[in-house]
């Protein structure tokens, strides 16, 4: 079993390594100087994983903790969005709508965080629940369309993303829900803010343990429970699942609700961890990055966690490469290449299988 898992993870690892290598070569060629390229990569590592040499020489722990905090902030949102896509994949649905679900989750967290007064121990969980519920509700729309009317989820989720943008960002946060400080909602109460775990020197907050716990919970659900087995069976062999008497529709509903809830939580981590309100526009398209995380991580919860942690760090470190004149979009280029290699690997696998396949007499 362990060997099988490693064998499945290996191609993704190789893909990421190959992407990193390819980027290094491309960067060296573009800068015309391998030494400079190496330095840029070094800066990216220092910015993403922490400036360990400086910490060792000066004893300044913040040199490590601050970068790690930035990486963790990005990684936790990537991870929750990636899990959302990966969970939907388990029932054979391609959730391109994580972005829309994320927007609703972020809005719900911001509204409950600002409008409700509760003791700190209760306020944050209530905000998270509201975000999860909002994301789940938005994910159930395409599910209903799929199960009742046969509408393909790729089409419906893409379109619902734009509906979400229109409703949330073009209307609600500049209209009925606008706060006193212009576009965006009012600032959330301190009791709803994600507590920082390492004091003021680092922005590392509860989001990272929360997202890692979510990954562990999803892994346990899918791989260790009978409910999870049924969920996976629906995606991998729907007809067989139906013939075996499994509740195919029921499992599709729950998986999509969980997928939406996870994307909603990603929005909540963004809002309650760094923005502290729903701004006029909610930052980067993490919902779409979630698709990349799910694919690079092989749709395995722990694979998604690994790829999210890596790319969270690379993205945070990318800012530091700017010092050397490298565009900060560089990590996204690596992510794109890694995805390309993962996709190519499926192509290679297909070619290899076709060559080796010898049907039985």
């Amino acid at each position, binding site marked *: 079993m362990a060997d*099988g898992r490693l064998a499945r993870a290996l191609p993704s690892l190789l893909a990421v390594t190959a992407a990193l290598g390819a980027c290094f070569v491309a960067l060296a060629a573009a800068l015309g100087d391998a030494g400079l390229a190496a330095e840029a990569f070094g800066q990216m590592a220092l910015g993403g994983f922490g400036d360990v040499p400086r910490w060792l020489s000066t004893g300044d722990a913040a040199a490590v903790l601050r970068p790690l905090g930035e990486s963790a902030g990005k990684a936790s949102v990537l991870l929750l969005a990636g899990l959302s896509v990966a969970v939907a994949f388990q029932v054979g649905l391609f959730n391109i709508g994580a972005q829309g679900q994320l927007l609703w989750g972020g809005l719900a967290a911001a509204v409950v965080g600002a409008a409700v007064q509760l003791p700190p121990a209760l306020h944050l969980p209530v905000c998270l629940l509201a975000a999860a519920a909002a994301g789940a509700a938005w994910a159930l729309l395409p599910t209903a369309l799929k199960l009742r009317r046969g509408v393909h989820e790729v089409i419906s989720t893409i379109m619902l993303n734009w509906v979400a943008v229109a409703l949330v960002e073009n209307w609600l946060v500049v209209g009925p829900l606008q706060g006193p400080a212009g576009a965006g909602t009012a600032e959330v109460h301190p009791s709803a803010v994600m507590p920082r775990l390492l004091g003021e020197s680092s922005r590392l907050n509860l989001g990272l343990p929360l997202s890692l716990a979510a990954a562990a919970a999803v892994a346990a659900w899918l791989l260790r429970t*009978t409910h999870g*087995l049924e969920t996976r069976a629906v995606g991998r062999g729907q007809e067989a*699942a139906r013939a075996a008497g499994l509740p195919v529709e029921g499992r599709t509903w729950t998986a999509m609700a969980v997928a939406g809830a996870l994307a909603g939580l990603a929005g909540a981590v963004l809002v309650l961890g760094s923005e502290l309100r729903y701004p006029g526009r909610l930052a980067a398209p993490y919902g779409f990055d979630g698709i990349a995380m799910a694919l690079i991580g092989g749709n395995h919860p722990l694979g998604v966690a690994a790829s999210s942690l890596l790319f969270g760090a690379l993205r945070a470190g990318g800012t530091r490469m700017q010092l050397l004149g490298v565009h900060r979009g560089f990590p996204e280029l690596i992510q794109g290449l890694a995805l390309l290699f993962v996709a190519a690997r499926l192509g290679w696998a297909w070619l290899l299988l076709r060559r080796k396949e*010898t049907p039985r007499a």
Partner: protein
Amino acid sequence: MRALDDVSLGLAAGERLALVGENGAGKSTLMNVLYGLYRPDAGTLSVDGAPVVFRSPRDAIARGIGMVHQHFMLVPTLTVAENVVLGAEPTARGLLLDVQAAEAAVEALCARFGFQLDPRARLGELGVGARQKVEIVKALHRGARALVLDEPTAVLTPDEADELFAVARRLADAGTAVVLVSHKLKEVLAFCERVAVMRRGRKVAELKAAGTTPEVLAAHVMGEPPPPPPPFQPATPGAPLLQLSGVCADGPQGRPALKGVSLRLCAGEVVGIAGVDGNGQRELAEVVTGLRPLTAGTLEVRGKPLTAGTPAAFRTAGVGHVPEDRHRHAMVGSFSVEENLSLGRHRVPPFARGPWIDSAGRHAAAVLEMERWDVRPRDASLPMQVLSGGNQQKVVMARELSLDPAVLVAVQPTRGLDIGAVAAVRAQLRAHAARGHAVLLVSLDLEEVLALSDRAYVLYGGRTVAELPRAQFDERRMGRLMLGTEVDRG
């Protein structure tokens, strides 16, 4: 692993050669090498004494090799003539399909070899036997001088099979070499002059058909003398377990597929459903397992009406299912063998403990069942899709029988399996009935229905047109009932 190992085989003009062997023995690989689908790692292929290299089926066709696959490669919405010329169309003014030339070509071929085919008939309206002839005419139209027939009689009635062999014999007499790939040793010996036996990628024997008995041939195929078929133990039927009366149901396109099926299945019995493909077998199997709703009639399992039941309700009522399309309906290919063995009973011990999967318990149970059914390779963590068809079927049978269903619906349970696996599956079906349960055997292979059933119904045009006790089993007459050319007056 090597699928073919140092195999040499010659074929003369007008010769009738058979290729036999168990699943995985290398028959299909050898034929695919011959047809340009695979290239050999070593060795040569010669046509007319000159070495050739086939890069694709196109090369093989150009050299006069024709192949009739087990699954027909025809377009149902086109006419017979259009299907025949597809890929080598005669054109008028360089652009348009010359329909008249195509029809004339087909008529000429039919006249020359004595086929009865209407070139203007739409393929979708033809029966299986006629479609197969279209495949043969198609190969001849492309100039085939060597024709490979892959399991051609698997879906034919005895009369249709006779007709096929008569046609093939005429072709051989006219100089075409015919290769018959088959599991049915009797027909191999009746039709062919020479038999090549494959085992584990090697050619282990080459025999003259004259003077060889099926028993001797089976021993060569299996590598050991086959065990004698167990004597048939007739059942003493008990209480009715499954009853259908006047059942109607729609097919996949919403057209009525079952138009009045009445049947009864009693404890201790194996009841066969004989019929030509497309007469409602698939729908009948789906109706009695809850996968397809009834539009009229009633259905009872153990005396309880289940007319509007879900697959889960049928399972709870004690109906097990070994479906026809194993890959789609019976297994999840990317799941491990033990996960597949657990499907449907995965919520109960030893497969689960509360809401959790009991990995250790499941593994132990799976290993035990794989041992009992001799599933190879004996590794419960392998993905189901890497197993051979016979071993996959054993896993499905093991799972369904472990639930001890009062009614087991088995559709084409031995299709594509080799001699050893067929014997194992058939023995288990009889044994299940002998334990006081009932088996509904739906098979397109009449020989299988006759071998296993205590009683049989003939399904024709969506109706049960005849019911025959074992004492009245008659291959020829049932074949005619299946084709609707004889009406039961009994």
